[in-house]
């Protein structure tokens, strides 16, 4: 019974990310291409062939006046986003389509101390994965060193979550980049402003395993300066999350928001100091997903004032 449930969940998942253009989005081998190519039409609220869907959920109550994260609010936002992405009425059903009792799940987070993934979101994911039947002992949350972390090396499924920000080497710290700690030598991927980061998604520890990508847009960093490339001045209370299956589409949408905020702040189009072209390259060279905004469907939840996309 258990294994039947899991298989069904995976089949549903394949449907959710169907369309050749998103074949690589969940990381190649899960879809293997055969399965994806043969998959039936996607359910509403997810993806259409040749397109990717991204949920943008925003809530003014996600942050208080000191920009402290409201845990219950952001947990609710995540549930809303996942339910909408898979066109389910309840978040429980949506999460159950992603994970099952046979899974071992690694939650790849980001612990950059200036702008970390809020612990409340990590906990919310852990709770929902457990609620889908995954034993607590087989759920891991980590950032660094996942290439030697048994919770990740033995994972059957991954959740990828991080805040978006500008970055010294890659232009922006993206979901595509967040999995770089799967390799013990991240600097191997730094060439040409990290243009080929999408290649990480073909590595054995990642390929075919990432089932959900969450870009935290609560207080994004749109410009960097100083030793740590962080100044509070260059963050703003956007109060959002971007959620999708296709990491390229989610990153591309987040990048548009950063670009728009830079234009507002600087009064003109100021190019990123380091070009974030790895997102475009992920589509054009690596065929991992969709970066073209014209082929990204944004599902909007909550306030859209100053949404910038």
């Amino acid at each position, binding site marked *: 019974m258990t294994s039947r449930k899991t298989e069904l969940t995976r089949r549903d998942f394949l449907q959710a990310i169907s369309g050749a253009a998103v074949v690589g989005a969940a990381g190649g081998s899960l879809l293997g291409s055969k399965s994806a190519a043969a998959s039936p039409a996607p359910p509403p609220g997810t993806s259409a062939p040749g397109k990717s869907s991204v949920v943008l959920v925003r809530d003014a109550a996600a942050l208080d006046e000191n920009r402290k994260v409201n845990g219950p609010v952001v947990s609710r936002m995540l549930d809303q986003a996942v339910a909408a992405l898979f066109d389910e009425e309840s978040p429980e059903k949506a999460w159950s389509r992603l994970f099952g009792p046979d899974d071992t799940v690694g939650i790849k987070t980001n612990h950059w101390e200036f702008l970390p993934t809020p612990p409340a979101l990590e906990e919310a994911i852990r709770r929902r994965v457990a609620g889908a039947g995954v034993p607590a002992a087989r759920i891991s949350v980590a950032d660094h060193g996942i290439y030697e972390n048994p919770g990740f090396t033995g994972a059957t499924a991954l959740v990828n979550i991080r805040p978006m920000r500008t970055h010294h080497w890659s232009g922006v710290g993206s979901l595509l980049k967040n999995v770089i700690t799967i390799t013990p030598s991240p600097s191997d991927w730094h060439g040409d402003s990290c243009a080929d980061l999408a290649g990480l998604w073909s590595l054995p520890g990642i390929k075919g395993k990432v089932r959900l990508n969450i870009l935290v847009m609560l207080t994004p960093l749109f410009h960097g*300066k100083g030793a740590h490339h962080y*100044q509070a001045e260059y963050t703003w209370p956007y109060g959002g999350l971007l959620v999708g299956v296709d990491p390229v589409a989610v990153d591309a949408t987040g990048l548009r928001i950063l670009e728009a905020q830079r234009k507002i702040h600087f009064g003109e189009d100021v190019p990123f100091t380091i070009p974030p072209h790895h997102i475009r390259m992920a589509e054009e060279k690596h065929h991992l997903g969709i970066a073209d905004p014209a082929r990204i469907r944004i599902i909007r939840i909550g306030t859209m004032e100053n949404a910038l996309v």
Partner: protein
Amino acid sequence: MTDEASDQSAVPGIAGFLPQAVEGFSPLEADRFFTADTLFDLINGGAEIYRALNVRHTVHRRYVHPESSDIIADIFDMGSAADAYGAWHNDIREGESAGMGRESEYQGGSLSFWKDRYYVSVVALYETDLTARAVRGIGRAVADAIPGDAQPPRLTRQLPGEGLLAEQVYFFHDHQGLTRRYRLGDGNPLLLNRHTEGLLARYRSAASGDTTTPPFILLLIRYPSSEAADLAHRNFRASHTPGWKEQPAIRTAGGGWTSSCLLGDRVAVVIGAADRNEAATLIQAVRSSTEPEPTR
């Protein structure tokens, strides 16, 4: 005593520059220390910049307050005033001076300055009146605790003042450091290495009469010897401006005007000037400001 032993004994010293408590903020936990080899663990993505400037040690402390967002303070021991200058000038410095150290800036909740061989960064995760006072208080305490007050690199005195965009002066050693700011073609035409010291300065073009015209560049590089400088200058001309005779400036493939000269153990290069006269005038100004080097 070896240099390394001396460096190790200096580690607790830099932590001692940090105050224990300011405006109700106190350390969250024990200080963290980093060397050049471990700096990647502290700085996500940017450690290479400081490694290229010979960083030796870094102390990192997080301050917390029960009713405020946190403040993070770092002191980088760069080993020399020149490299501390370089670390601070790695960014465009357009914010207000904080009035501490040799040069400082306070902008958007972040304070940075350099003094003697140290580059100091104090950053509030979110700016409020309280964190602004605390950031400045921590910085002031550190600046007061650093005993020395060495001068900027001597090369900076040779930068002509007219047209100089003072907030955009960068210090580097090797070709990679230069390339971070300006790509001077393939290879390493100026024969830069870890023993050379260079400045990249940007100048507003007076010739164009248009403030939207991109600034042009002066490179000023000091070599370990006059012979090394001469070799580099000849290599630059051969590789970057073939066909150069004795004219004061030459138009290069990029469309701007280039000029260069050898000044003892230094080489000056102007790139991207709007016309021949502008390039030649700046080179002449560098010649005029060149002071005799003390015997080394």
